[in-house]
């Protein structure tokens, strides 16, 4: 590997240079390795969130079940929501953006490789911090916070360890004052608030990084309106994060101050206003919904054209609709609060604003249908998942419109109808899109294609299990079954459908096992993919599979939308795509060229500092939770010292070590990459 040949030491520490083993991953600044780590970590949390979901569903399978205590049930639905939103869908989107964004725009890395490593490690430590609540939450916290004592609902007290019930239990949107010190005693909700704070920081850093990458690092000729739709959607998501994370940061700080230092922001007894929390949370929370689903929309917009062998129908309309969804997403937050007593004017205004979101969403759905219409469709696994996305998301979108009608929403608020709706958009939407992307881009990772037969089994099992799980929730909800209640009486007649729902949940679990088997075996035994397994359209497929460390030996010079496709295909008189006679040679030549760089390619050097800087943050936050104790104060100090030392080291260390032999030989032919950090 020419790129990693020389590693001189210029700072206090010798620069890390290992290319294999644990330290190579800890010190890496390669966007692909960071993307892989994001992906595996997200999948790990996906499994945890899935187990939590199965516990919830097992409890609800029968009437008056005693499987879980009320406290454990509260904790499970809280952690299921928190995990799936913040620890699975967001980081898995970050994984896609990390791995694919530079490739899709024809770049060698992101704009700030070290910040990229930082945001990953901040996320990693944030996730561990949040989940450490299962160990430290409540039970081990006799002195932390204002709320001394055990989890009231769980019936546990200080000193009794109750694994499940000791975790956060106030719902993923932590309504106040229920999540305040009075009603959620102990430290579990402190772990929740501070954990989300850390995860938010990671998202904010990567949002800035991706925006600068998209604006400044595109390959020559890739003007904004030539970018793949996934890049556009990533840009919209990054803006949404940029402008919504600060809001939740303040709201979470207010929770922490209320719980730890006795401020009175949300405590009604002291004059605080719980509705302020709802506003701040949903000001962030609604853009968050689009943060979750837009990357999946981007993936699907990449996959559908490839397997329909047609350009994306109405490219600019899809791009514009995505931006419009992002923009409108900021103006509809109060539709989560129709039942909270906001004024009739506000209800009407937010109801109307919510309905307008159906317009750009509808534009997208019709454009996806238009892409498939009259196309030569190949029903590969990524295509199946994309079609599944369009169908399931449409159902979720339609039930969403019914919440925009205020009187109807009052009827549905806090029932399973809502649960059905958001699982259709987030599971049927985001997750199907994510799986489409995993199958579609797997060759970039391993140079192999995932097994189609097993993949189809995964798809059909998941589609069936998903609909069996969430479709009946519509009618359960309309029959009046309320959310977040751990028991129902037999005479409600809710049991048959609840039992079906639980069966569906277990079928989903089996489908995920099938996926894991497929992933595991395809890594080594999948069919070799070559450069272009799908006859693809965009420039990420001009980089060899698996992706070399430098991405592109020769950065592409882009001449239009679907640049790669147009290298391979011309048009006949009627505008139909016709393969160029020398198509196979063209592809082979691209692969040869991209595998053999003419001169050494310098990439940013590895570094220790992002890892250590991120590591200090949870230590500080543990210290805040236990700040009433001496060792709590010591933790704050230790964490601050670790982080600040890492900042100093970072500031002193150049992104790239000098390359004396090339400087001497003159710089022509020496490919410099323009990063900053």
């Amino acid at each position, binding site marked *: 590997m020419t790129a990693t040949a020389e590693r001189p030491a210029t700072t206090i520490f010798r620069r890390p240079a290992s290319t294999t083993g644990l330290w190579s991953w800890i010190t890496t600044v390669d966007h692909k390795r960071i993307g892989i780590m994001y992906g595996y970590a997200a999948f790990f949390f996906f499994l945890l969130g899935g187990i939590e979901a199965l516990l919830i569903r097992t409890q609800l399978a029968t009437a008056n079940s005693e499987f879980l205590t009320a406290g454990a049930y509260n904790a499970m639905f809280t952690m299921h929501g928190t995990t799936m939103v913040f620890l699975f869908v967001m980081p898995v989107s970050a994984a896609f953006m990390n791995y694919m964004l530079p490739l899709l725009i024809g*770049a060698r890395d992101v*704009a*700030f490789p070290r910040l990229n490593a930082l945001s990953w490690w901040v996320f990693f430590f944030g996730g561990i911090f949040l989940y450490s609540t299962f160990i430290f939450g409540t039970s081990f916290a006799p002195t932390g916070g204002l709320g001394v004592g055990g989890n009231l609902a769980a019936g546990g007290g200080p000193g009794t360890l109750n694994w499940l019930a000791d975790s956060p239990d106030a719902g993923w949107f932590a309504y106040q004052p229920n999540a305040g010190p009075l009603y959620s005693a102990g430290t579990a909700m402190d772990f929740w608030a501070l954990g989300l704070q850390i995860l938010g920081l990671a998202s*904010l850093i990567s949002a*800035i*990084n991706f*925006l*600068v990458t998209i*604006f*400044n*690092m*595109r*390959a*020559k*000729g*890739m*003007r904004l309106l030539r970018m793949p739709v996934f890049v556009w959607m990533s840009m919209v998501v990054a803006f949404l994060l*940029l*402008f*919504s*994370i*600060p*809001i939740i*940061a*303040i*709201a979470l*700080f*207010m929770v922490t*101050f209320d719980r730890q*230092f*006795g*401020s*009175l*922001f949300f405590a009604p007894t*002291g*004059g*605080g*206003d719980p509705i*302020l929390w709802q506003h*701040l949370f949903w000001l962030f929370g609604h853009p968050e919904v689009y943060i979750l689903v837009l990357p999946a929309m981007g993936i699907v917009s990449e996959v559908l054209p490839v397997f329909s062998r047609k350009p994306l129908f109405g490219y600019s309309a899809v791009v514009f609709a995505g931006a419009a969804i992002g923009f409108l997403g900021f103006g509809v937050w109060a539709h989560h609060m129709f039942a909270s007593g906001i004024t009739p004017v506000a209800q009407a205004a937010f109801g109307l604003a919510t309905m307008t979101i159906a317009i750009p969403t509808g534009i997208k759905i019709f454009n996806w249908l238009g892409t498939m219409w009259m196309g030569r469709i190949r029903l590969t696994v990524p295509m199946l998942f994309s079609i599944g996305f369009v169908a399931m998301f449409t159902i979720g979108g339609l039930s969403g419109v019914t919440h925009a009608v205020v009187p109807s929403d009052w009827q549905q608020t806090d029932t399973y109808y809502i649960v059905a709706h958001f699982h259709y958009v987030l599971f049927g939407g985001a997750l199907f899109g994510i799986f489409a992307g995993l199958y579609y881009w797997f060759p970039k990772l391993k140079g192999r294609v995932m097994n189609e037969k097993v993949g189809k089994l995964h798809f059909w099992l998941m589609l069936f299990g998903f609909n069996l799980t969430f479709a009946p929730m519509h009618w359960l909800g309309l029959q009046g079954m309320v959310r977040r209640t751990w028991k129902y009486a037999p005479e409600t007649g809710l049991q048959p459908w609840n039992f079906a729902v639980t069966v569906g949940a277990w079928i989903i679990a089996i489908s995920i096992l099938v996926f894991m088997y497929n992933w595991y075996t395809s890594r080594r035994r999948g069919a070799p993919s070559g450069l272009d397994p799908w006859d693809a359209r965009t420039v990420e497929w001009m980089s060899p599979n698996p992706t070399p460390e430098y991405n592109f030996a020769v*950065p592409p010079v882009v001449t239009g939308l679907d640049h790669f496709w147009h290298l391979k295909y011309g048009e006949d008189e009627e505008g139909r795509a016709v393969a160029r006679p020398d198509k196979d040679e063209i592809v082979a030549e691209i692969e040869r060229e991209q595998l053999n760089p003419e001169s050494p390619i310098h990439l940013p050097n590895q570094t220790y500092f992002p890892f250590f800087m991120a590591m200090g943050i949870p230590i500080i936050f543990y210290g805040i939770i236990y700040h009433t104790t001496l060792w709590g104060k010591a933790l704050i100090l230790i964490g601050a010292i670790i982080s600040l030392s890492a900042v100093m080291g970072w*500031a002193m260390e150049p992104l790239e070590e000098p390359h004396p032999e090339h400087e001497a030989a003159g710089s022509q032919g020496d490919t*410099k990459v*323009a*990063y*900053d*950090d």
Partner: protein
Amino acid sequence: MTDIAHDAAMETAHPEHESTGIDNRKLGMWLFLSSEFLFFGALISNYLLYSHRGGFQGTYPAEVYDIPFTSVSSFVLLMSSLTMVLAHNALTRKDQNGTRTWLFATAALGAVFLGGQVFEFTEFITNEGMKLTTNPAASAFYLLTGFHGTHVAVGVIMLLSLWGISRRKGGLSEKHGLNLELVGLYWHFVDIIWIIIFTAVYLLSVPPA
């Protein structure tokens, strides 16, 4: 280093990219600052909400403000923006002495502002009996001004680091020039947030009837 020269350098440094022509780090900084509006906006709205609510127990912030004192410290912070821009200007003219002096002056003015804030908080807590836990209005006041003060403190640390580097042989290099510009942007931003706070929180606040 002037921005013109800088942009020209950018063009040659990014030969193979379709880009905005704005330096990566500068673009990143402006994006960060634009998101900070949402951050401080939440804090200011929080204060406006609770300072207008009547019926809380204990002292309201507006009852204890010392306007002449805060006017002076606001003036100090405002003038630190002048010294900051003079430091940046001196560096563009390769005047290392001037850069050093004005950097130090900026950090010193920032420290004076922080000292004023510490004094103000101490006064309010010990003499006026208004604590974080007194009522939501007081909580909001401390959270807002505290977070602003934290921003100022971070700025002072960055300024002192730059000042430390500028005292070394050769002073600040071209690369540090951009650092100085970025710290400057951050510093001015903290100042404009205070301009809003001074008016919205101090001058326009009246205790609810």
